[in-house]
């Protein structure tokens, strides 16, 4: 199974995401923001970083990259898409996911190991976890505060579309401690913390992030 990892100008975490995909058992395929071809991938990851320098708003320019037109079309047809950190911001700007990521409530750039709880383990990217499983993976961002209006929040909560929540003190002011959400269909997932940095205890706080990259294999087999 082929999982595309998109590199935008300013993307940082494409190499770790590529490694995580390969360690998880799939084959990572490099995609470039200017590509008008998804190279027959079965799923796509938008990794973290500062695409287009975060100019205007995080993810605002990346949304209009040629490759994103294809990603938006494919996501609409059910292809699994995972956006991590900046990738999550791009998915929100693309309207594949509701809401927006804004400046951390205390204005500080955070870089820490963060405990999160997987609250929806039925999506294409979270099915390797058990419901309520707590994992610790890195969180590193300046604009990770998930915001949306009350109506959207109720819709997310009522339909089980929150996939992960921060455990303990709210690190960035996100509404309802939201660390990640999914679309109605469960194929598009956005996540603020970084599972791709936690796939090997040698280099990460845990190997508990790997579940996101093995989930996608289960999703394809089903």
């Amino acid at each position: 199974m082929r999982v595309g990892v998109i590199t935008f100008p300013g993307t940082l975490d494409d190499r770790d995401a590529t490694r995580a995909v390969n360690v998880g058992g799939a084959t990572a395929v490099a995609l470039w923001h200017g590509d008008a071809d998804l190279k027959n991938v079965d799923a796509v990851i938008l990794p973290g970083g500062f695409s287009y320098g975060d100019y205007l708003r995080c993810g605002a320019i990346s949304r209009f990259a040629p490759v994103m037109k294809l990603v938006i079309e494919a996501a609409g047809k059910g292809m699994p898409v995972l956006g991590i950190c900046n990738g999550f911001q791009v998915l929100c700007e693309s309207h594949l996911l509701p809401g927006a990521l804004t400046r951390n409530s205390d204005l500080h750039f955070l870089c820490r190991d963060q405990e999160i709880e997987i609250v929806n383990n039925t999506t294409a990217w979270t099915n390797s976890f058990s419901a309520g499983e707590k994992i610790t993976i890195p969180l590193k961002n300046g604009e990770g505060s998930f915001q949306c209006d009350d109506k959207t929040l109720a819709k997310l909560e009522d339909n089980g579309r929150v996939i992960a929540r921060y455990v303990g003190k709210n690190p960035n002011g996100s509404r309802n401690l939201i660390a990640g959400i999914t679309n109605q269909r469960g194929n598009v997932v956005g996540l603020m913390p970084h599972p791709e940095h936690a796939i090997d205890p040698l280099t990460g706080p845990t190997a508990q992030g790997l579940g996101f990259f093995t989930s996608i294999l289960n999703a394809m087999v089903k």
Partner: protein
Amino acid sequence: MATIVVDVMLKPEILDPQGNAVASALPRLGFTFATSVRQGKRFEIVVDGEPTAAQLAEVEKAAEVLLSNPVIETYSVRVEN
């Protein structure tokens, strides 16, 4: 030449940590006038001659699609000479 100005502000219900930081810095410098501060963005778009209605409509469209994120922000468009 005319300048079309687009102001983009966070919606009132969206938390503005930058505005809050400015609001708390002001009294430290002896400026005690502010009860609240909101920070926004201003775009200055220069066009040849007086902007036509069609150009202004295009700018409105650009403001909605690119310059602002309607999920969290509002915008206003005006002409400055």
